[in-house]
């Protein structure tokens, strides 16, 4: 914050009319300039530049999927119950994907998210933790899961930022180690949660909507604000776009990288709690292949794998497209092999669509 705020008022003074322009005028002037620039583009181009337009390819993909769902399964697809099921199943992987969006925009990658989810869920459901939770409050289990998640994220981040190792390698190591540790702690058994209060609360409803979906919504909202409306978000984009430039601009790239991985670790902890409630268990098999699902959702959502550009809304669409796809296929009783082929095709089509649309909005 301190690097950028002093610069802005100076700029206003230099370019503003003598006597000092009021901020409102300044705002209007910028808007007018933007409108003038917009005149050089077509109406379509301006529309495509908007946040809705950038995600148009995804909206189309999701709408087509929904249309297929309604056409083939009718009311079974279009029911409120089914919509809530899709959202509930999307919530856990969705939270992880939002964290993953930050890491990928920041120029990194994390292959260990699924393993961290597994470790958090196991650590938070051991008999010792559950006993402690029964003696005090179930929030102890939530705290444990979050702490384990953040801890793993910090280890990833510190090794990458200060150890100078490639994110791919560090998180691959964490993938193996965290799941191994989860297996050691759980002795490869599924740990059933006896603390009903935790399950009842997180698995329950609030205002008629499952709490799991509320958590997904809140995390999405926080993620959007964090990326689009805060210095943290702008720094993330700067670090991912050009780390050297970001460093020269005074951003502590290393510290920021650590924060990004810790943030993703936190998201994994949250997802672990959600999974614990959904399945009433902690298990070393939780979150299997989530790293691939999360990265796929983020990439489909239009985030550049090289970093520097991406949106939260796109990621949410990416997750929803996958979950809706599985749902529509199940409603039509198609087998899992067909689903796998379709998922592959959808990734390619969605990314192609996304690139075309994005390219058109940039050029026009």
């Amino acid at each position, binding site marked *: 914050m301190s690097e950028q705020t002093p610069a802005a008022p100076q700029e206003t003074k230099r370019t503003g009319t003598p006597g000092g322009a009021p901020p409102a005028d300044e705002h209007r002037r910028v808007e007018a300039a933007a409108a003038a620039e917009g005149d050089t583009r077509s109406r379509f181009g301006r529309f495509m530049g908007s946040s809705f337009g950038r995600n148009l390819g995804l909206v189309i993909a999701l709408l087509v999927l929904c249309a297929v769902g309604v056409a083939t399964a009718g009311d079974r697809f279009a029911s409120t119950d089914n919509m809530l099921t899709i959202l509930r199943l999307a919530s856990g992987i969705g939270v992880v994907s939002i964290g993953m969006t930050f890491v990928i925009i920041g120029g990194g990658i994390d292959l260990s998210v699924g393993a961290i989810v597994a470790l958090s869920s196991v*650590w938070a459901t051991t008999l010792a933790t559950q006993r402690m939770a029964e003696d005090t409050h179930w929030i102890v289990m939530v705290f444990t899961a979050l702490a384990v998640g953040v801890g793993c994220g910090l280890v990833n981040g510190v090794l990458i930022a200060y150890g100078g190792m490639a994110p791919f390698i560090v998180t691959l190591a964490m993938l193996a180690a965290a799941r191994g540790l989860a297996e050691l702690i759980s002795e490869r058994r599924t740990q059933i949660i006896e603390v009903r209060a935790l399950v009842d609360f997180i698995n329950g409803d609030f205002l008629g909507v499952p709490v799991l979906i509320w958590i997904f919504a809140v995390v999405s909202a926080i993620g959007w604000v964090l990326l689009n409306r805060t210095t943290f978000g702008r720094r993330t984009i700067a670090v991912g776009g050009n780390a050297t430039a970001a460093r020269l601009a005074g951003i502590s790239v290393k510290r920021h990288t650590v924060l990004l991985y810790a943030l993703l670790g936190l998201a994994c902890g949250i997802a672990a709690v959600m999974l614990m409630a959904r399945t009433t268990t902690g298990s070393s098999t939780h979150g299997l292949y989530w790293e691939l699902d999360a990265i796929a959702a983020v990439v489909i959502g239009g985030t550049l794998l090289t970093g520097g550009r991406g949106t939260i809304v796109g990621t949410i669409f990416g997750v929803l497209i996958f979950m809706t796809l599985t749902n529509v296929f199940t409603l039509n009783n198609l087998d899992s092999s067909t689903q796998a082929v379709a998922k592959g095709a959808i990734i390619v089509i969605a990314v192609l669509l996304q690139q075309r649309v994005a390219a058109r909005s940039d050029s026009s």
Partner: protein
Amino acid sequence: MSVRTNRPFRRLLTTTAAVLAGAALVAGCTSNEPEEDPDAAGETGNGGGDAPAGSNDEPGETVTIGFSGPLADHGWLAAVNESAIAEAESYEDVELRTAEATNDASLQISQIETFINEGVDAIVLLPTDGAQLTEVATRAMEAGIPVVNVDREFSSPFAARTTILGDNYGMGVSAGTYACQLIEDNGIEDPVIAEIAGIDSLPLTQDRSQGFADALDACGQTVDNRVAAEFTVESGEEQASNLLQAAPQIDVVWNHDDDQGVGVKQAFDNAGRDEFFFIGGAGSANAMRWIQDGEMEATVLYPPTQAADGIRLARLLAQNKGMSDLVQVEVPRRIVLNAPVVTQENVDQYMHLGFES
């Protein structure tokens, strides 16, 4: 300048310290010592204790048996490995060499090579992949070491002296036959039958599904809705949730695997659906408790004691004994275990076989 470079670092330090302190606090939480004694797993292996002992159980010459199994990444496999080790410990004339459990076929091959070099008297082998371990097992046989092949079959009949298998196709048949019986007994017309399979690419899943379909076919029924999970709790919950949306009304549902069944059951509970007969598979302790409580109709057993039986057979082979309950002097070439249906009536009889998932 110094302020700007120091502060973030200090903040990072405090954050790290705080998290580490938090981690230290929860580190105590990794303990998983159960308060009551876990007798289920131990008992599966010590079934020999209360069985009527034939002359075969009397100590003979001490034999060395090599045991190698895949990494126990789920409850059933863990029970298989544990019961094998427990079985060997119950014989004072058996010295067991246990190889580190692995999912790497080439590592398992080298383990068997070590057994051959050590000159063990018999080998009990649950291969990570039957075909890949066939060659080394054949070499062991050629070296005069009898190999007992457990659960996953070799691709050559010369690779094992005795093969002991669970019956995946039979599991499907048992489940299908029981489903037919339920439909008939309850007079359900035009029943909706659902199936929650395991990993679809595995032959064992295909065998189970085929058996289920064949048995249903015999009473004129078909599977109406089918989903495939991945043997994990999470995938079970996800697939079952979608399945419930696909079929607003179900009469019978067969879930292949009780490990993923924990998630399947939770999905049923979440949706408040219990209008159907819920049949499980494998026979975990959880499933048996649900059957006792009336929350589950039945489960089809896939015995986790195969490797333990393998140890017994290996001991007999090494000591040149036959099976005392058979007239035949030699241990049979091939044993296929039955896949009985466990219901509320007979659950107490099978409870000790239930493995903790």
